[in-house]
Every structure is written in structure tokens, then in C-alpha cells.
């Protein structure tokens, strides 16, 4: 299904590219023609984190048939967990110099740290929460939704409602997550200054490592017998039931896994962009993540990574060169890809590579069975 060639190429491009950029940034003098400026490092690091979100979306959409319109929520929750750790690391270096309380809490006149902030001074705890918080939310939500056979557009809409509810919640100051401004002004991550170039280069390489790991994990899942069942559920859910499978358990497993992947992406995103605020929860973000996958090619995993990097590169370029045209371009991308390029960029590659007589790859066609 996902050939070894494509797998190796993906791994090589992601990891090799990141290492190359990091090395060129660290070991060439700033004036040199080969030097990669720090902002590029941060930018690419950001793209790779988005790619993790895209991978997570592809896993549930491409293989599970669940179109998630709220996956950025898991990404943001992972990001907030990391942000809380980074906030605690500021210590007395904040504007108010309070060792226990982040600046925004002092500003709000809070006297003590809320209970749910305790533990976040330890990296290991924060890392656990990066995984656990999205996982638990996904578990509860998924269990409720899949058990009652909510499918198709209904499911999509309630995932959107979920992230919308979280968006509203995180905007509230009383939630204790910095309200509108979110968490920012970070100083250190595990003892290294978060703004420093070597830290940024390391974070880029780390993001690449995690992305490769997630890619391999996702590949393992979809190519196992589990993956075959999942695809069967995607295409003909009721048929799998009569075969004795419980589609809800399969969806739940892949849904939780996907949420964790998105959460990790968010956690690596926050130290590299230096801020996390409620706008990450906005439904538009989640829908954008879906279009990354659609552009790259749904149900291909590699395509999700490719799409995330391509679209975000385009966004960076557009928003600086032609800001008023960006929404036109993004809108056109949504329309164009769904109408003209249903298999995405990977579909184009495949069409060129396909020799006559060989059967098209299994997950290529966005199956008709998806219709609810």
C-alpha cells in the first residue's frame, strides 16, 4: 500500500532536510552563501509540526473515513501543556518577578497557582500531559460519538463544535490559561534558552525525528490487519459489523492515536513559535489542516506531510507578498483540489508512475462508500 520507496524517500527528505538546515545554520558563518538564517529554521520547524497535525488528520480521514473539523483542538491542547511547562520555567524572570505565578495570574490578582497547574514545573509531567490530555479528551469524545454511530457530516460538525467550545473556553480569563493572550514570553526549555539558535536548530531536528517516528507508526498501523479493518470500516461500515467487527473500537483506537500525534505536534510547535493562544482552537485552523491533507493526497500519509509543508510555505509567501490575496488563494485551493485533484499531489505522482496493467493502489480512490 505505502511502498518502501515512498517511505524511505519521505524519511530521507524530512530527516535529512532538517539536519541539513540545522547544520547549515549552526556551522556556517552568517555572511556565507550557504548560511541558513534562524528565521528559516523556526519556519521549517513550524511546518514540520503542522505536518504532524496533517498526519494525524490523514490517519482518521484517509483511513478511518472520519472527516475531523476540530483536530487543531488536540494540537492546541498539546501546545498548552507544553506552554504551561515553559511558563513555569520563567520563574522570577517575569515582569512581576513572581516565582510561583505566571505574569498573567499576578495581573489578574490571583494569589495561588490553580491546582491544574501543579506538576507542570517538571518536564516529564508536562510531557505526560502532552500525551494524556488530548488522549483523554479524544477517548471520551470518541467513545460517546462512535458508540452511538454518529457518522459523516454529523460527526464532522460536532468535532467542529468541540473545538469551538474549547476556543470559547480558553478565551476566558478565569480558565487560568492566559485568556486572550495565551501563554508567551518563554525563557528556557529543559535548561536551554528557547530563543537561542542552537536550541532552535535542535528543536527542528527533534521535530523531524518525531515526525518520522509518527510517520512510521502511522504506516505500521495502516498496513497491519488493523489497517485493513479500518479501511473496510471507512468504506462499508455496516458490512464490517456483520462480519463481527466492532467499528467503534477501531475508530476509537485510531482516533485517540491521532489525537496524541496532533498533541505532540502542538507541544513541539509552541517552543518554536514562542506563543500559544486560543486562536489555535479556531475551527478555521482545523479545516485548514484538512486541506493540507487533501492537497497532498488523502490516505497516503506521505502526502499529508507534503501537503502541510507546501500549503504552509504558500501561506508564508502569500501573506508577506500578497496578503489580501491569501484568502482567495486558500479558497481556490479548497475548491480546486476537491474538484480537480481529488487524489492530491501524490495522486499525480502515482498516475505518472502507474504502469498499465497494474491495479491502482488500494487507498487511492476516495471511496464511494464514504457517503453516509
Amino acid at each position, binding site marked *: 500500500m505505502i511502498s518502501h520507496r515512498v517511505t524511505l524517500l519521505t524519511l530521507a527528505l524530512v530527516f535529512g532536510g532538517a539536519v541539513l538546515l540545522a547544520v547549515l545554520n549552526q556551522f556556517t558563518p552568517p555572511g556565507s552563501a550557504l548560511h541558513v538564517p534562524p528565521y528559516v529554521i523556526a519556519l521549517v520547524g513550524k511546518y514540520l509540526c503542522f505536518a504532524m497535525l496533517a498526519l494525524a488528520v490523514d490517519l482518521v480521514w484517509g483511513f478511518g473515513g472520519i472527516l475531523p473539523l476540530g483536530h487543531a483542538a488536540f494540537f492546541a491542547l498539546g501546545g498548552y501543556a507544553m506552554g504551561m511547562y515553559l511558563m513555569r520555567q520563567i520563574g522570577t524572570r517575569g515582569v512581576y518577578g513572581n516565582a510561583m505565578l505566571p505574569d498573567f495570574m499576578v495581573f489578574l490578582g490571583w494569589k495561588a497557582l490553580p491546582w491544574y497547574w501543579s506538576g507542570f514545573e517538571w518536564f516529564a509531567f508536562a510531557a505526560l500531559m502532552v500525551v494524556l490530555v488530548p488522549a483523554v479528551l479524544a477517548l471520551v469524545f470518541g467513545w460517546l460519538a462512535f458508540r452511538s454511530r454518529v457518522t459523516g457530516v454529523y460527526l464532522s460538525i460536532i468535532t467542529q463544535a468541540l473545538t469551538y467550545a474549547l476556543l470559547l473556553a480558553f478565551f476566558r480569563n478565569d480558565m487560568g490559561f492566559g485568556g486572550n493572550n495565551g501563554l508567551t514570553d518563554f525563557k528556557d526549555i529543559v535548561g536551554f534558552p528557547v530563543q537561542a539558535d542552537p536550541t532552535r536548530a535542535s528543536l527542528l531536528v527533534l521535530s523531524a525525528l518525531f515526525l518520522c517516528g509518527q510517520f512510521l507508526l502511522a504506516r505500521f*498501523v495502516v498496513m*497491519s*490487519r*488493523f489497517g*485493513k*479493518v479500518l*479501511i*473496510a470500516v471507512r*468504506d*462499508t461500515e*455496516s*458490512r*464490517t*459489523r*456483520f*462480519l*463481527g*467487527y*466492532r467499528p467503534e*473500537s*477501531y475508530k476509537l*483506537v485510531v482516533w485517540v492515536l491521532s489525537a496524541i500525534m496532533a498533541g505532540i505536534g502542538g507541544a513541539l510547535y509552541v517552543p518554536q513559535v514562542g506563543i500559544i493562544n486560543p486562536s489555535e482552537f479556531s475551527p478555521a485552523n482545523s479545516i485548514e489542516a484538512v486541506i493540507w491533507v487533501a492537497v497532498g493526497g488523502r490516505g497516503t500519509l506521505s502526502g499529508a506531510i507534503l501537503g502541510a509543508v507546501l500549503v504552509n510555505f504558500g501561506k508564508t509567501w502569500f501573506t508577506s507578498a500578497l496578503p489580501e490575496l491569501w484568502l482567495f488563494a486558500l479558497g481556490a485551493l479548497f475548491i480546486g483540489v476537491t474538484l480537480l485533484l481529488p487524489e492530491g499531489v501524490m495522486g499525480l505522482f502515482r498516475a505518472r508512475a502507474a504502469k498499465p496493467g497494474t*491495479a*491502482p493502489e*488500494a*487507498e*487511492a*480512490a476516495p*471511496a*464511494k*462508500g464514504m457517503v453516509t
Partner: protein
Amino acid sequence: MTEADTLLYLDGVTVSFDGFRALNGLSLVLEEGEMRAVIGPNGAGKTTMMDVITGKTRPDTGSVIYQAGTDLTKLDEPAIAALGIGRKFQKPTVFEPQTVWDNLLLALAGDRRPKFSLWARESAAERARIEQILETVRLPEQRHRRAGDLSHGQKQWLEIGMLLAQEPRLLLVDEPVAGMTDAETEQTAELLREINLTRAVVVVEHDMAFVRALGVKVTVLHEGSVLSEGSIDHVSEDPRVIEVYLGR
């Protein structure tokens, strides 16, 4: 007939949709290892009956007792499938983008839980069983083709093959020969008789020639309940049957 011989017992099953009674106090007994043909005009409740047996539809009243005392109306589809009841749909339903081989692999009896399937590897026994089924349903040449690329008849057989892979004790087959050529129809009748050697089969069919070829006990449904039951000759002479069905 003793209780031990009874495989399936539908007792006064009633199902209504928005006031329309699809099944109206339907009662039916099926013996272990029996093959039964169910016929009836459109809207007689044939498909709804299958839906009730397999857990897709819950009846308003009545019970469906399987083997020694399991009430199927309390269970959902996967649980009923796990008890050994397989179903073939009117419209062939296979996993189109996946290969014939994978379709059969997914249908093979075994652990259905995610934690098993994540780590499962194809065993030699599984491979042998799939090979055997491919022979039975006459598809060994097609094993690597996408199921979606098969012809209509081949899909029907693949679906029967998948049912066999499930190793059910009871097979429910909904219009297996619809849209088949005469040769295919004959082969299908052959196949069903072969299957019936080891398990019970319920066939819902419109094609009277096919039902006659099967040569089994026939149940005629009309407006959600049994109108007549017996050999094909017996029911085709029943004046009520002639009136509602054959006479038209």
C-alpha cells in the same frame, strides 16, 4: 422435532416503520442444518426479517431465539455475527478498494479486537483456508485483484466466500442470483447446496426457477407474516399464494 434440533425460532416478531408494519407477528422455525427458501412479493418483509435476525433492526415485539435460548433481539450486529450468523446482502457488499485476498482475510473467523489485529500476522493455517475458499467460490485467479474490479457475479461469489470464511452455523442469503446469468445462477445453486452440507442456510429469492432448483422447504411471506409453508409444489398450489403472488 425436538428442541435440540431447532437452530432459529422467530416468535411473534413485529416491526413497524412510521405506522407501516413491515413484520406482523412473524413466527418461523428453522432446524439445524436446514436450507430454507423464503419468497414473497415486494414489501412482504423478507429483508426486514433478515435485519431483525442479524440485529440491524430491533423488533417492537417478539423474540428471536438462536440455538438453546439466546435471544438475538438483545444483541447487536457484531455480537450476533460472533455467534455464527453470517449475512449476504441483496446488493453485493464487498470491500471494493481491497484485494480479493484481503476481503477473505478480513472475513476469516478469529479474534476481532483491535489489539489482536494490530499485531496479527497471516498464519499458514489462514493462508491455507483462504486458498481453499478461493477454490470453493471459483476465484483463485482473482486473488490479487481489487474486489471493486470484479464482475457482478464474481462479487456475489466473493461475498459468499467471505461468509464461508466466517464459518457461520447459519447463513442468510438475500437474493444471491439477482442479475446473474443462467450459468452463474446454476453454479450458485450448486454452491449453496455444497455450503448446506455443513451449515444451515436461509435464502431469500424472487427467482422461482432458482428456488425450484434448490429443492428445499419454502416459506411464503405476505404483509409481514407467513402465508404458507412447505415444498415448492405445495405452496405453488396454495390458492392464497396464487392470489397474492404467483397469480399476478
